[in-house]
């Protein structure tokens, strides 16, 4: 197996002095399924931002698919991001576009033909129980519906890397399971999946590797799930 993601002694200091990540080293292999957890403010979202080149590390190296994110030219960043499907903690939907258009945008960016886009988006929407909301706008959706749109957008183009930041915070238990199954399936098809979450329920359900952050430091790393420990 090859390392899909490598964090080598990464520190991220935000302007203002807060140290969000403090000497974190992590390797995630291609095809792995990993939980990242830790209390509020531990640095989970920051870790994801570094993967996306939304922020640059203050020190240390971040490698995604063997490319050094820090050394990436600005014009290459979009191509990095096209390989990463992200569920943002705050969803980040486009308020002025319909649910359909919001999900389709990932595919339009890739320049896929209209017909393929229609098929794929319809499929994923049905899978997530959003079929009837095709023409709705995000501000008209419930919290859980918005979250599912964000999930649909992240997985619709079958990216090699899926990153989900607290993807079930607004979902009821039944839907949470469905979403996790969806991610598991993608993982089964070869995608590397990283899920940042607080939910013990979620972590307990699956036997997977779990990385514990606290105050920006990696404090623990072990397998979770009923039969772990």
């Amino acid at each position, binding site marked *: 197996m090859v390392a899909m993601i490598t964090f080598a002694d990464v520190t991220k200091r935000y302007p203002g002095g807060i140290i969000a990540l403090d000497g974190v080293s992590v390797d995630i292999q291609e095809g792995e399924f990993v939980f990242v957890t830790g209390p509020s403010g531990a640095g989970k979202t920051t870790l994801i931002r570094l993967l*996306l*080149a*939304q922020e640059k590390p203050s020190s240390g190296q971040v490698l995604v698919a063997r490319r050094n994110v820090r050394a990436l030219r*600005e*014009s290459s*960043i*979009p*191509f*990095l*991001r*096209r390989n990463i499907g*992200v569920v*943002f903690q705050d969803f*980040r*939907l*486009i*308020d*002025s*576009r319909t649910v359909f*258009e919001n999900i389709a*945008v*990932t595919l*339009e*960016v*890739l*320049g*896929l*033909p*209209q017909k393929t886009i229609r098929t794929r988006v319809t499929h994923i929407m049905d899978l997530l129980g959003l079929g009837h909301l095709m023409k709705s706008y995000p501000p008209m959706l419930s919290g859980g519906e918005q979250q599912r749109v964000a999930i649909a*957008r992240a997985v619709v183009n079958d990216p090699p890397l899926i990153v989900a930041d607290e993807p079930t915070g607004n979902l009821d238990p039944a839907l949470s399971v469905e979403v996790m199954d969806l991610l598991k399936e993608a993982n089964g098809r070869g995608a590397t999946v990283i899920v940042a979450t607080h939910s013990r329920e979620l972590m307990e359900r699956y036997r997977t590797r779990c990385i514990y952050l606290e105050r920006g430091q990696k404090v623990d790393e072990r397998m979770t799930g009923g039969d772990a420990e």
Partner: protein
Amino acid sequence: MKNLRRAGYFLKGAVLNLTRHPLYSSVGILTLCVSLILVGFLGLFMWKADQVIEEMSGGLKLTVYLEAEITPGAVEELTRVILDSWPEVDDVTFHTHEEDRARNRNLLPRELLEELDPSLIPAQPFLEVQLAISRVTEARIDKMIEWFRSLAQVQGVDEVLFGADKISVAYSLIQGARNLGVFIAAVIVLAALFFVVTTTRLIVEGRRKEIQVLLLVGATKNFVRIPHYIEGVLQGLMAGALAFIVVWLLQHQLLSNLRAEALLQVPVNLLPTGMGVWFILGGGVLGLLGSALGIARYLRLSQ
């Protein structure tokens, strides 16, 4: 094929931007429109003002007095030489001995004329040389005055009357007015551009989060930028058409107003319909420029 598809998405993005936020698109179009009206309307006024000044100053004239016994052939020859040598000359007209006498009569006080033998009034044939002020340039004016002065030495010419001073002053006056016009036009054009750019900038700011989302899901800057440019051009074209209609109505109103109130011989020089094309093109260019400048700094700063 892929490029065609991409063009389709750009156009679609532009149309989405235009249709999904009525406040932004209406403000965008109206701002372009009002800017074009400002520029177009004042442009129109200045253009007419040039005409008015030219008319008011009565143009610049010089009089070449000829000897009484000059032959028609010589007159014709002289006229041709003047016209050929100086593109600044608009027109040369020959006035006979009798016409000169009539002119002089008009200069005399009534009381005097009653006691005067008409044949005593002096008279002389002359050429009236009309200059086109708009073609007179600073560089050539002195040379021209020199040339006409030397004309007095030519066979058949008696005297050249023109007050070199008067020409210089009138020229300066017109030049000054034109400078003032350019100055005002510059202020207005800059102001209009400023308003268009800041409005676009505010609209881009209002769409900040949406643009960030696009960038986060892997859109290139061009994917964000090009629909925005297209949107600007489309808005500009609409604004141009609208502005032309408004300016046309305004000047129509204004001219009929002036004609009614001021008994002025304002020419019925209505804004030619062909100008509409310029308005629409100008709108498109202004829209493109505004959207380009409005988004440029924003995109440079965001990743």
